[in-house]
């Protein structure tokens, strides 16, 4: 279990990263600016929570690229404008329909696209549905885990663009969880973080054998 998380200092970041529910999931927490001096190479994954400002990550693009080249995993969550600081990202923003849930007949349209993926031993489709902020056009060879009603990627894993791994999503669970509302976002983190811990442990075992 080796996750290094970035804390940009907004209330929901502090609540999510330091609050009792998830703080044990993170082996290190740094500020975006610490990427100038902290090498994440000792960690299995570098987690950039949703809504971390891109202007605070752009100065560290070279550090992130080196980490990926060394085989690291970068997780970029929603509303981070990650196309501005990670390679190979093609993102199309959508106007958010904040109100879809007011109509009981309405369906946000989020679908699990790879039900056999181990992540979905921890998450159900309803744990992915709160808002949509946009979709990605992942590179050929990437694995799309969740998509919108038109099949456009909302969560995918890219192991082809770099020698490392990019886990990219337009979902923004830290924001809502850290603001104490939107229960689906807490369910998402309840499943996503344990999966990530398991996944990193499994990769570490495989690398050691």
């Amino acid at each position, binding site marked *: 279990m080796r996750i290094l998380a970035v*804390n*940009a*200092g*907004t*209330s*929901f970041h*502090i*609540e999510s990263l330091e609050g009792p529910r998830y703080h044990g999931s993170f082996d290190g927490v740094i*500020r975006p600016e610490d990427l100038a001096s902290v090498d994440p190479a000792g960690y299995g994954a570098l987690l950039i929570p949703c*809504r971390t*400002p*891109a*202007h*605070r990550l752009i100065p560290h693009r070279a550090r992130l690229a080196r980490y990926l080249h060394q085989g690291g995993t970068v997780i970029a969550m929603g509303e981070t*404008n990650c196309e501005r600081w990670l390679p190979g990202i093609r993102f199309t923003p959508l106007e958010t329909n904040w*109100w879809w849930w*007011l109509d009981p007949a309405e369906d946000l349209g989020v679908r699990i696209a790879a039900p056999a993926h181990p992540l979905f031993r921890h998450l159900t489709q309803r744990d992915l549905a709160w808002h949509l902020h946009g979709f990605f056009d992942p590179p050929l060879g990437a694995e799309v885990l969740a998509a919108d009603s038109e099949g456009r990627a909302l969560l995918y894993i890219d192991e082809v663009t770099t020698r490392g791994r990019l886990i990219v999503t337009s979902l923004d669970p830290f924001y809502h969880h850290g*603001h*104490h*509302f939107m229960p689906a976002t807490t369910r998402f983190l309840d499943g996503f973080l344990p999966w990530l811990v398991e996944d990193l442990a499994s990769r570490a075992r495989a690398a050691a054998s």
Partner: protein
Amino acid sequence: MSERDTRWGAVLIISDDGPPASPLLPAIEMGHLGVRRQIDLSEQDLRGACGLITTGALDQVDFATRREAIAAFLAEGGRIVFNGHLLRPFFAEQRPYVPLPTQRRADLELQRLAPHPVFAGIPASAQQTQRGVAGFYGRGHNPMLPGARALTGIGPERLPVDWEWLLPSGGGLFVHAGNDIWGTSDDPLVDALIAERLVAWSLAGRAKGQGS
């Protein structure tokens, strides 16, 4: 981003990637409100400004490291508008945000508790819901500083979701514990009025002290 001269004006601290919220644009256009990215906010900005307006995206870790400069700013008549959940106190005796234990509709009911120029003529009902949904205005409170005055209460206990704390210097805090307060109404005119009045409020303390 605008790089206006902020001396003796108000400064909007932008902490995210986005542009300023539209209700604040008229004050920026008229030159009453300068704009600084938080990562560029200097001690000179603090010394020169009358007021600081922060958003829910504030980097509170950074802001808390400026405690001494903030204390001096307030003591010299500066005013701060704070939006959001306070998790990193930036002033002595502040305590962190307390979420409501339950969030039923009655728990989210708003009530004005004291008259204040920011809310004059604006009933709490104008900010109670958006599209019929309550909770955007607040789901808890930032505990008041000793001597503060509760302005808007939430829930049956009327917990202070908005409060004002003023010093003899004219400096002080306007604290709102929810989404940015200029974006909490279905009526854009209400949001615009709140924004305009908050800018005026933030200017009042230090401008008086300067006789300007």
